């Protein structure tokens, strides 16, 4: 269980408060207007920012002061998810060998399998610059598979993709998350994404990250803060 207890953090002149808990394996959308603090919430969970007050814990273990690399979290950013000068196989290999050594035969087989799994069969020797946006997203997801961590954070990684492609990618995220049994948080500003992907929604608005609410119920009968955003 991922728990945020009395977390408070300053964002410029604004504040963000979060008091919520999320179940392992759950699929959660983080929804709210821009600038409300959706990315900040993910940063706190991933360890890129440390809250001014409160605690973050996973399965009862306090993570508040843990470094990002010490957390059971994998994350996809809006961009820059792959090293452009390394081949796809090398990029994926880093998930298995963080010391950067060349993967052994067994690891290479796993890398191949992961690429196959996301539909990029035989592209291991290509570099990211030669791929389409969708293929880069798939590569990053293949790496998430290899990282195999219980929490997966997605900070709008597919925002630049067209609607059909985005739908396809969200489906793939769903598959990956199911395979890993990972708690998945997807930041989005599109309620349709939330309906398609998430069973519950964390609404971030007016300085508060609200506890998760069931997606359809929340979107069908939005509270005032959400209604203002949905328009």
């Amino acid at each position, binding site marked *: 269980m991922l728990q945020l207890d009395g977390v408070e953090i300053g964002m410029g002149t604004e504040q963000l408060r979060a008091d919520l808990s999320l179940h392992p394996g759950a699929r959660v959308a983080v929804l709210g207007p821009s600038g409300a603090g959706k990315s900040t919430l993910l940063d706190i969970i991933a360890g890129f920012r*440390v809250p*001014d007050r409160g605690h973050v814990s996973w399965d009862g273990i306090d993570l508040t002061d843990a470094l990002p690399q010490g957390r059971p979290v994998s994350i996809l950013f809006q961009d820059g998810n792959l090293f452009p000068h390394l081949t796809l196989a090398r990029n994926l290999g*880093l998930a298995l060998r963080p010391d*950067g050594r060349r993967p052994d035969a067994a690891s290479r087989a796993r890398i191949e399998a992961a690429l196959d799994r996301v539909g990029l069969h035989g592209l291991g020797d290509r570099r990211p610059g030669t791929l389409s946006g969708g293929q880069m997203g798939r590569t990053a997801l293949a790496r998430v598979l290899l*990282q195999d961590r219980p929490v997966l954070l997605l900070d709008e990684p597919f925002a630049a993709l067209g609607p059909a492609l985005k739908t396809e990618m969200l489906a793939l995220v769903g598959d990956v998350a199911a395979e890993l049994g990972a708690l998945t948080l997807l930041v989005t500003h599109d309620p349709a994404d939330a309906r398609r992907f998430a069973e519950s929604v964390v609404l971030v608005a007016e300085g508060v990250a609200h506890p998760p609410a069931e997606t359809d119920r929340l979107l069908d009968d939005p509270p005032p803060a959400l209604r203002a955003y949905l328009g």
Partner: protein
Amino acid sequence: MAARPVALTAAPTTARIATLSAAGILAALTLGPIAAVLWRAGGLGAVTPADLDALRFTLVQAALSAGFSCALAVPVARALARRRFVGRGALVALMGAPFILPVIVAVMGLIALFGQAGLVNGALSALGLPKIDIYGLHGVVVAHVFFNLPLAVRILLQGWLDLPAERFRLAASLRLTPWAIFSQLEWPLLRRLMPGAFAVFFVICLTSFAVALTLGGGPRATTVELAIYQAMRFEFDLSHAATLALIQLALALVAGWVALRLSRGAGLGTGLDRLPLRWDGQGPAARLTDSAWIAVAGAFLLVPLALVVARGVPGLVLLGADTWRAAGHSLGVALASTVLCLAWALPLARPRGALLSLAAIAISPLVLGTGLFVILRPFVNPFTLALPVTALVNALMALPFALRIITPAAESTRADYARLAATLRLTRGAWLRLVLLPRLRRPLGFAAGLTAALAMGDLGVIALFADPQRATLPLQVYRLMGSYQMEAAAGASLLLLILSFGLFVLFDRGGRVRASA
């Protein structure tokens, strides 16, 4: 914005230790020798009225040199950005050469152009016009502009390159007036880049010695560095020398601090041939002025080089085994300096490292050498350390330039990939080997070329450490001149020029081969 920033590189503690030790070694190497000299001298000395004159001249010439270098760079860089012609890239690359030119070689070239028996005066007297005189404050400034203008032009070209091309396209499609382009596009960039560039040139010119002495024309052109030389070698007054060295260091640090406050991101760019393109200034008047600027700047920067080559060719056949061996030693020193400088620059490639490293070019090489001598003498025979110490001092002197080149790219690599590296739990070694070094290939190649060229040409030789059997090439040039071998000295200077420029091109190109996006 972040209330409590989190260190993001893979293993923050090792990274911190590397940075702190690099900074510590740098501080120890700049302050240690001064402290050693002070300790040996038994305290500070008095400042004489002649010192104050020297200080005044030093400040005036440094300010004028830096000012003219920056001011003249604007029309030259603008002209190069607006005009397209065959050989434009090559011209820009060649125009960068003076900066890496050994001082003694450059001064010879300038005198061959502007001296009493030089080309310009030859042309003037053929026309029946009065001769010009290169010697004096203006001569010192001309020489410093010769060295620094190429760098200033590069900084500007790089600045324009970093601006989105759309802005110049927009300006062209809106048909903005030249004044509007200047105030809306150029001025903000100049305000951002020029203070930092000015400060760097100011600091370089602060420690000017050979230029001021040869072209200064007399005692009015006494710099602080010359006063240090006098105190150190002639009067053996160490306390006086150390006092002057501290004044010089303080001036440089103040200048550096001001520059750091005023400027952001005045990077030197990562190559010679990427050029911005502008669509404004296509009228006949603009074409004419641009062409004139390119012609004048090109002639000013390239003719002295050509003259060095022309004068040196006959001397090449006179070069003896000693000179070729000296060339070998200089190559070795240059390569060692390059490795040392880059190993030093990588952990220091952070915004605050730049200020610290300015101390390195501001410290008097004489005081540095004497201090190292005092420190090392009890333990080792300094003669056996001549080349290693030369390599170290040259690495130190090139460090500020290497940092200016590497830091922006290192910062952006960290900004772009440190978070990803953290979630991947990359080790420090993997980060360095697989991410940082490959991402920095181009700037590293450029920095390595610059360092090697500077180390090749700089007479960072401390006479106290001279090694009888392993002279460097610049020292050999002086030895030849000291034995009436002026023609051979010209040949050796040409050899020095060829090797300096060759090393530069080699490294700079090497950084670009297979450097992918």
